[in-house]
């Protein structure tokens, strides 16, 4: 007795030997099979800086979709990069029309804890007109799941409702 003094105690139990058959002399850990489990809560909150990428989100709020263009090799990176990885030149912002084609997608019936999203939800990779690389976001307002086809035209749509992260100011939907 005395364990009731431990406020975060979840259980005390006897663990089995997972490899009982592997020990010719019996269970070598038999003296260590009484197990406690306790609860340990950890919470983190970050003051996260969006840095050189901030303009992308500021313009999303203005319903404009910006990519970055390399002044040296001309490559347009849809997910913005201040530095072109192909030639290490500093890029400049370039507005795209926000239309494109569906390159691939997946349909999830399960979602990790941190996302407030209704299932099923569709994650999509889109080749935006005027960009050389892809952009990843959710596809919404697709009607029937069967109607989603690789190669279909899609467009950037903008929220008019409050969102929990600036990335959610936009999504894709069929054009």
């Amino acid at each position, binding site marked *: 007795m005395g364990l009731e003094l431990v406020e975060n105690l979840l259980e005390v139990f006897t663990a089995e030997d997972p490899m009982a058959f*592997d020990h010719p002399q019996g269970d070598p850990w038999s003296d260590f099979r009484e197990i406690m489990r306790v609860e340990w809560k950890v919470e983190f909150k970050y003051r996260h800086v969006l840095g050189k990428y901030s303009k992308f989100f500021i313009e999303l709020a203005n319903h404009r979709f910006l990519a970055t263009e390399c002044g040296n090799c001309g490559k347009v990176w849809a997910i913005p990069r201040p530095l072109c*990885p192909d030639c290490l030149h500093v890029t400049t912002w370039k507005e795209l029309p926000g239309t494109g084609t569906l390159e691939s*997608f997946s349909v999830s019936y399960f*979602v*990790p804890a941190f996302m407030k999203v209704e299932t099923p939800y569709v994650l999509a990779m889109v080749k935006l007109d005027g960009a050389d690389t892809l952009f990843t*976001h959710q596809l919404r307002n697709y009607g029937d799941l069967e109607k989603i086809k690789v190669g279909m035209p899609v467009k950037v749509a903008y929220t008019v409702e409050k969102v929990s992260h600036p990335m959610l100011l936009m999504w894709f939907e069929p054009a």
Partner: protein
Amino acid sequence: MEVMDRKRRVFVLGGGVSKFAAERADGNMRDWINEAVLEALADAGVRIEDIEHSTTSYFSDHFDKQLKAGAIFHDNIGMCPKPNVRVEGGGATGGLAIRNAYAYIMSGLCDSMIVFGAENMGRHVPSDVAQQFIALASDTDWEVQVAGFYIAYYAMMMVAHMERYGTKEEQFALVSVKNHRNAMYNPKAHYPMDITVEDVMKSRMITYPYKLLDNCLLSDGAACLIFATEEWAKKHSAYWEKKPTIEVTGTGCGTDFMRMADRPFPYPGITHFRGKRTAAEQAYRMAGVKNPREDFDCFEVHDAYSGVELVSYEDLGFCKEGESGPLAERGVFDLGGELPTNTSGGLIGFGHPVGATGLAQGVEVLRQLRQEAHPKRQVELNAKRGGMDSHGGTGTFCVVNIFERRD
């Protein structure tokens, strides 16, 4: 990239694996490491006090809420005050750790190295929180915020593969059937099972096109390998030349953009693992491998999802792009086939305690090359060579290592 000093060679003296399970509530990472280390020391016939250096292999600080866990593993097995280094490359961590042992020994920094790895993936956090921890290994600014997580990324890769090559869901379901079946002959395996393609197809849809049985599971477990030069082994290993001699003859590493969205077209696009092709080319060149399907007797492939194994066949050069599905149907990669893959059960059947996974692949290849595997999963030795493919992110880090039997 050429190995400069051919006089110096690195041998695999022994290996050990703890039981892999959904939850090892009887202990935590350090305890499973102890199990794997004790088995590896006994297998190698060496004493820990003689080993000069260690490498730690684990992926996530979140799962065990313990930073610098390597210091605990290292002191737990009496290695202090000798040197230790941690390597980390997501799912490729174990493969990187083997490569690290090779590099340290070849450089002369040490003549012997013990490599231990573990991951505490078990049931102490709910599986959606576990998926969140793993999602943190993708771009947290640009991908995670839109509900990106690993099954969804890999599902998009597989949809692109199906679209491009006509690969069918039933074809990657076969990989799951094979790996669960192979695990039945591995007593350390987390998930041995005798199932059919229909069982996989009918299992719960997680993220189209991946069903529950297409996915590997989160496992608790640890693995260990011991490497040394011949001179060191002669002096310190009771089993040198008494057990078959196994040498590390190739290692390669490749990478790709963190986000699939940034990868160039047409190759790899969002379909292929470019870093894996790079890693394989380096390792094959070092080991003199020309035709992998003939030049290997077994290969452990990183089957985080069943389709990943198919795509990996193509990027590891086992077949041309788009051919993996039909070859899986022909049983080319089954036990008794031309090149048996994941004889241990792989990530799907054996389990995937991330930091241990790549090392467990090495232990399996060691057992196979020494002909110590369970008779039902022991391969026939012809080339006397086995390979392993360790892979992190969506192919962001890839490592290919090669062991060969010398006799």
